[in-house]
């Protein structure tokens, strides 16, 4: 007891070094702690963003700085048929997959919310499509959709549903459907596990009380579960919309934008123009064309989170 008292007094007497005194100030400490993150995000997000805007108003190609051309690149892409198809595809892809991911994900979450044997095990397995590298699992799908060796065709044929082969990735509409299926496959686990976490915060007593009052299962879902789950659902959906809208990997592997440029999204077309053919400025313009939509989603998300926090 007395020893520790002595040691603290000796510590107090020695003035702490200057560096340490600075760190005692909350503002300096905050600055020091935040500096690495700010430098990193400034160098590799803010700076590239500005560079991207500057690039999109020039006529740069690989190895050629190019001149200022104003909005000519944007004018050019908006009159480009493939770009318009890509815009249409991106909205279709995002819309359709989000509806299915939400519906199936919610269904799966409700199934997983019951008590059954092996629940932890099944939950762990269900997340696999989401954690396995997307490019690698998409190759498995591409192989399943292969025109000549498709296992899906084999299955449908032996079930008696088709008589000839289906050329999944050779037809523009079927290729788009195939891509949508793969995206739904990848996204359902994310929705299911996130919504399951939301479901688990809802007290079962609420449902029991409603059941005693004579509410049918459907009514209990619509009037109790759904409203309480809505905040989580909104956030999960907005995250998913951003990721899907800017998706690249699935289309790149499945079709590469083909057949005949019919399945491009913003990102794959930007890659084809910017990296494939080396028209850097035009590629940057295509990428940046995503920005207004992404910004809108982010604003909705920020407003929504703030509203939930205020409540």
């Amino acid at each position, binding site marked *: 007891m007395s020893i520790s008292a002595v040691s603290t007094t000796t510590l107090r007497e020695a003035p702490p070094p200057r560096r340490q005194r600075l760190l005692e100030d*909350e503002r300096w400490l905050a600055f020091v702690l*935040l500096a690495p993150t700010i430098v990193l995000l400034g160098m590799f997000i803010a700076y590239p963003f500005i560079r991207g805007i500057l690039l999109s108003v020039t006529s740069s190609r690989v190895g050629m700085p190019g001149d200022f051309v104003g909005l000519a690149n944007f004018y050019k892409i908006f009159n480009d048929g493939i770009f318009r198809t890509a815009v249409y595809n991106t909205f279709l892809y995002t819309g359709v997959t989000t509806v299915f991911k939400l519906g199936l994900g919610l269904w799966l979450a409700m*199934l997983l919310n019951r008590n059954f044997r092996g629940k932890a095990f099944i*939950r762990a397995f269900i997340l696999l499509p989401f954690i396995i590298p997307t490019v690698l699992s998409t190759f498995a799908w591409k192989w399943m959709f292969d025109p000549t060796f498709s296992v899906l065709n084999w299955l449908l044929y032996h079930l008696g549903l088709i008589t000839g082969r289906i050329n999944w990735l050779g037809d523009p509409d079927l290729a788009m459907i195939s891509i949508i299926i793969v995206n739904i496959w990848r996204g359902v686990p994310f929705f299911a596990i996130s919504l399951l976490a939301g479901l688990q915060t809802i007290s079962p007593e609420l449902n029991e009380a409603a059941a005693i009052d004579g509410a049918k299962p459907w009514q209990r879902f619509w009037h109790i579960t759904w409203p309480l789950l809505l905040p989580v659902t909104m956030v*999960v959906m907005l995250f998913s919309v951003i990721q899907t809208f800017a998706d*690249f990997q699935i289309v790149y592997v499945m079709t590469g934008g083909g057949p005949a440029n019919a399945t491009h999204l913003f*990102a794959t077309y930007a*890659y084809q123009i910017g990296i494939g053919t080396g028209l850097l400025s035009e*590629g940057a313009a295509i990428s940046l064309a995503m920005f207004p939509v992404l910004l809108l989603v982010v604003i909705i998300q920020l407003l929504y989170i703030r509203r939930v926090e205020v409540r």
Partner: protein
Amino acid sequence: MIEGARWRKWVFFYVPMALFLLFLLFPFYWMVITSVRPDGELYRPWNSSNYNPFWTWKPTWDHVRYLFEETLFASWLWNTTFIALASTAISLVCGVFAGYALSRLNFPFAGSLGTGIFITYLVPQTLLFIPLAEIIRNYRLGDTPWSLILTYPTFLTPFCTWLMMGYFKAVPKELEECARIDGASRWQAMLYIVIPVAIPGILSAGIFAFTLSWNEFIYALVFLSSPEQKTVPVGVTSELIRGDVFYWGPLMAGALLGSIPVAIAYSFFVEHYVAGLTGSVKG
């Protein structure tokens, strides 16, 4: 359960659950079976007779052998591991520090900085890859692992920060104040008191960041060009397809072996991963 509910349980639970599992897990089964199936069986048209696509009686290691002997798969695995570990470490240090500052310190512009970091969390890689490729070239980082080790933290750090903020907020202020009264400096209190309490959060953020960087594709595709520098997803994509010819056996074997490390990491930390996933959504 009430009498007569047996068929209901089948219709409303077992059957839909089985269909979900079939849909979600079949591609992995297909990966496994393709990677051990001899080429002679692999390339049989889907409508040939006496053909059972779901099983093979003559499993072979040829595809795996091809992968390690004829391609640089071993170096891709090593590159991916190194890049994922290094970028996860950087993001964890940045994320833990930034998360601590944003959740526990008072300073001007704390709110707007937090919002700013949250917004960068939502920036998809595909928005910036073209100007970033130029910048990487200008810094002379192109075709080196550093191009990825330095850029991956841009999407990992905001996520780590966001997750750590949640964990740090839950640590009671009194704990830190006790340490300060006992003579610890602010820095020491953070390092020895607050951060150890948040270790489950650091694990969640780490495992999540590791899987994200293992999965990253477009930066690796654009920034790396020589075969021996590539990561698994890019190597498999670019080196196992020659023109229009797909080497499906090695491709599926590569997809399988490239997934195993991340699946193992995940299986050890399932609970932490799920906590990270749901934490990243709720904030």
